[in-house]
Every structure is written in structure tokens, then in C-alpha cells.
């Protein structure tokens, strides 16, 4: 049950998408998200979808994994789709009318575009986390935010906090499962019973979980101090990120596709 949470879950591989410089990948992902909103027309979204499918194909990530990352947001998609479908009004005659509900051709179009856009958004950002290990990812974020440290923003500390948080997600998930099993063994109704009973049954899980999280934090702080951790100043890195020729080439290819998505607005007005 808890294993289905895929945020920050890395799917190791050796494809060009995996080996690309993480900084470039982050920037491209941001650009992709922006383009999804700029090129929000049928052609633009078609290009975005095909492009993303292509990248998933290259990185050899199984379809099941993509489906798993989209599954949790399906209710949101369905909710917005229903709202859009019934609340938007079009200019022409409604296609369908019943009581206060009217459906116009425009609202159908908008609903589909909206749904595709959300799916692309989630699948696109998931591609980044699937192909980049969390540690590399925060490293890249630290590098990208480095200029902000001139403004006395604690960039290194923020990145370290993110690394630690990401590092402990799987550990805490595992811990939660263990505690849940232990309480289930004592008859806690976590997988059966009414909704109210299930919510109440969370207390015996959350309290031990918090206590163990605090304990882990103490232990980690102690271990870091024992190794003389003193913040980012004067700290060198084991793995230096270096831009390679391939990163530039792939980056440019993506940029061309993004320009195409943007240009699609010339043919179709963006909604």
C-alpha cells in the first residue's frame, strides 16, 4: 500500500536521459512545464505528449511505473474535469442540457486539454525523479541556487535539509509499515473497519513514528557532528558536476521542441 508512493523514487538506468547533467535536466523540466501552459492548444499539447512519450521510451521506464505516479492524482483530474465540463459556458448552442447542467462543445475541448495538461505535468516531473537519484538532484539544485548565496540565502543548508528529507522518505515508509504491522497484530483496524475507526487507528501508528523520527534526527545530528560537519563553508565535493558536449546537444534538441510547442500558438490560439 505505502510502497505505491513514487515521489522521489529513482528507477536506475543507463539511458541518455539518465546520464544527462542533472542541472540541465532540472532546467529543461521547468521549461517543459512552462511550455505546457504556453502551448496550451491541441497541437502544442500533442507535441508535448509525443515528446514526453519519446523520452520515456528512451529512458526505458516501464508503463506501469508511469501509471503508478498518475494514479494518486486521478481524483483531482476527474474533479477538475467535471467542474470544467459543467461550469464552463460556450458561445453556441449547448450539446446537452438537463436541469441546470449544460454541456458546450468548447467545454468538452477545454476539459480534455486540461486533463492532458495535468497528466503531462505529473508525468514530466516524474521523469526527472525517475531518472535522477535524489542525492544528485539536490546537488544540482544546490548548484543552481548557488548565486543566491550572495544574497545570504543559506543555499547549502537548504540543500542539505532536502537531501536528508529525501534520504529518509524510504526509511520512514519502511518504519511506518513495520509499526502498522505491529499494531495490526494487536488488532488495530487499519485495513478494515469504518472510516472513523481507521482514522482513530492512525494514532497508534503516528505516535511511534514521530518518536522514532526524532530519535533518528538526534542520532544523525550526532553522527554528523562526530564527522566535523560545519555547514557549507569551505566544503569540497567528491563528485563535481561538469557540463559535457552531449548535455549541450540534448539540451538544444529539447529547446527546439519547446520552440515548436511555443510556435503552435501561431496556428491555434492558446486557451
Amino acid at each position: 500500500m505505502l510502497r505505491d508512493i513514487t515521489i522521489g523514487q529513482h528507477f536506475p538506468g543507463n539511458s541518455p536521459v539518465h546520464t544527462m547533467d542533472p542541472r540541465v535536466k532540472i532546467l529543461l523540466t521547468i521549461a517543459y512545464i512552462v511550455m505546457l501552459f504556453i502551448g496550451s492548444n491541441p497541437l502544442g499539447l500533442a507535441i508535448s505528449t509525443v515528446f514526453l512519450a519519446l523520452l520515456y521510451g528512451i529512458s526505458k521506464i516501464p508503463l506501469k511505473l508511469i501509471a503508478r505516479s498518475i494514479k494518486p492524482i486521478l481524483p483531482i483530474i476527474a474533479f477538475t474535469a467535471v467542474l470544467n465540463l459543467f461550469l464552463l459556458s460556450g458561445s453556441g448552442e449547448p450539446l446537452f442540457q438537463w436541469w441546470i447542467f449544460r454541456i458546450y462543445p468548447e467545454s468538452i475541448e477545454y476539459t480534455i486539454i486540461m486533463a492532458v495538461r495535468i497528466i503531462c505535468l505529473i508525468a514530466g516531473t516524474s521523469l526527472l525523479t525517475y531518472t535522477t537519484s535524489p542525492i544528485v538532484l539536490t546537488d544540482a539544485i544546490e548548484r543552481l541556487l548557488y548565486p543566491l548565496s550572495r544574497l545570504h540565502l543559506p543555499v547549502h543548508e537548504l540543500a542539505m535539509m532536502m537531501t536528508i528529507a529525501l534520504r529518509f522518505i524510504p526509511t520512514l515508509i519502511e518504519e511506518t509499515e513495520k509499526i502498522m504491522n505491529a499494531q495490526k497484530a494487536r488488532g488495530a483496524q487499519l485495513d478494515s473497519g469504518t472510516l472513523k475507526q481507521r482514522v482513530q487507528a492512525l494514532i497508534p501508528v503516528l505516535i511511534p513514528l514521530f518518536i522514532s523520527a526524532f530519535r533518528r534526527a538526534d542520532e544523525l545530528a550526532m553522527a554528523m557532528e562526530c564527522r566535523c560537519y560545519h555547514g557549507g563553508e569551505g566544503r569540497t565535493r567528491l563528485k563535481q558536476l561538469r557540463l559535457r558536449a552531449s548535455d549541450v546537444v540534448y539540451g538544444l534538441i529539447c529547446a527546439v521542441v519547446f520552440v515548436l510547442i511555443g510556435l503552435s500558438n501561431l496556428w491555434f490560439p492558446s486557451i
Partner: protein
Amino acid sequence: MSAAVKIEHLSYIYSEGMPDASVALDDVSFEIEEGQFIGVIGSTGCGKSTLISHFNGINRPTKGHVCIDGEDIWANPKDIRRFRFKVGLVFQYPEYQLFEETVYKDIAFGPANMGLDEQEIDRRVRRAAEFCGITQRVLDASPFELSGGQKRRVAIAGVLAMEPKILVLDEPAAGLDPEGRDTILGQIKTWHKETGTTTILVSHSMEDIAKYADKVLVLNAGHIAMYDETAKVFARAPELLALGLSVPEVTKVFLRLREMGLDIPADVYTIPYAVKTVLAAKATREGGSAC
């Protein structure tokens, strides 16, 4: 009469259908009779913990059946809680499951979930606490103020208080000092003797298994390697060593003595039995030299 626990062709695969799928248990079948004390041994990652969490339906078999008292526990999945009360499971490092304000309330969590009345809950909590050596002062304390060994005892008492027909313990003594170890295992053995509870003990310590178990189940890579009376299992020392396991120290000594040509039995696994055999051997030798 049907066996207390009957496992039929049980297979369990982790994350089935995913690229990282792994077979934890492969076609395991065995029976445990009522009132027995079973030891489960096997090297790390052989499926011990996976196997025991099938007994009360924490894991659902990928294939095969788990029957408790002749009933398939997954016949009606909604009814699974009934079996969770029948089979009390103490996980590894159970002290992390404590959550209540007082020790008393925490021990009462299981019985309260069973829907028992106040009086019965109180009786069970006090009985389990007494068995585990928990004093009234500790009962009123917060579980988070206790020492590691005390927390462990409280957690075990929390399962004993449900008075399960079958008690399963996954390394209840791991990480405790030798005295705490003997105390806890001794209390479990006493509980077993006094209540006749079928007990299944998972342990890495061959000494503990030798001391307490009637029968031993040896798991290796998701299969049953051996399942026999304790003496017979430890008599197969070379096989156990080949599986990355060990035999009690006293058995090692006796095997070495046998190799040196002494005529003594191979199935010596406890100190009292060892003393008896040594005395018997001495008697025959003296008798022989007198002739």
C-alpha cells in the same frame, strides 16, 4: 484433531509483477501441532520473518493456504482480525510499537481491540504484566521513560495480554544483555508451560533454540531445509554449518570429541544432557577398566 498451524504450498513474492520482484517463500508446507514449542532458524534474509507474518495474516500468500485450527484464514478476508487475536505476533524490536500514555494502557490496547469488558481487560493486563515482571510502578509510568529491556517486556506483555492460542516471537531477545535474554525467554517458556500456548520462536541463537524448542524448523532461501525434533536437527551439524548456520557450542565440543574417537551420541545440544552423557561415558570407561 487438526493441527494448530497448517501451511500448505505457501509461496510469497515481494512486489510481484515489478522488475524488482523477489521470491521470499517458495512452496512451503508444514504443520505445527497444538501445544508445541517450535524454534525457527535460518540465515538472514531466508524468509523467517516473511513466513511468520503469514501466520496472522499480516502478509497474504501469493499462492497456497495458511490454516489456523483447521480454518483457512483468508477464506473470508473481512474476518482476518479474529485470527490476529488467535495468533499473537511479537515482531522484531517490538518496543517501537509502544504509543500510549501509560504502560498499563499500552498493554490494554490489544485486549481492548478484542472488545472485552473492563474487568476482563484488567485481569489480562495484570496477568501479562506479572508474567513479564512488570511492577505496578512501571504500569503507571510512561512507556517512553523505560529502559530498552523494560520496553521490550512491555511490548511482549501487550501481545500476551491478548492470550492468543498461538504465540509467535521474532527474535524477542535481540539486542538485550545476557541476563535480560534469559529472563525474557524464561518467562516465555513459563507462559508456554502454564497455558499450553503453541509457541513459535525465531532466533539466531542456537543455544536459545536448543534450550527451549521441542522441534526446529530450518529455513534456507525460502525453502524448508529441515523440520524435526531439536536433537535430530542438531545432530545434522555439518549440514547446518553448510547453510551458514551454527550449532550450540556444546554440540561443537561433542562433535569434536566424536571425531577424536570417543563413543558418545551426536545429538548433544544442552548442557544438562551433555553432563549426563559425559557421566555415562565415564561410568562405562571405569567399568571397562575394572574388568
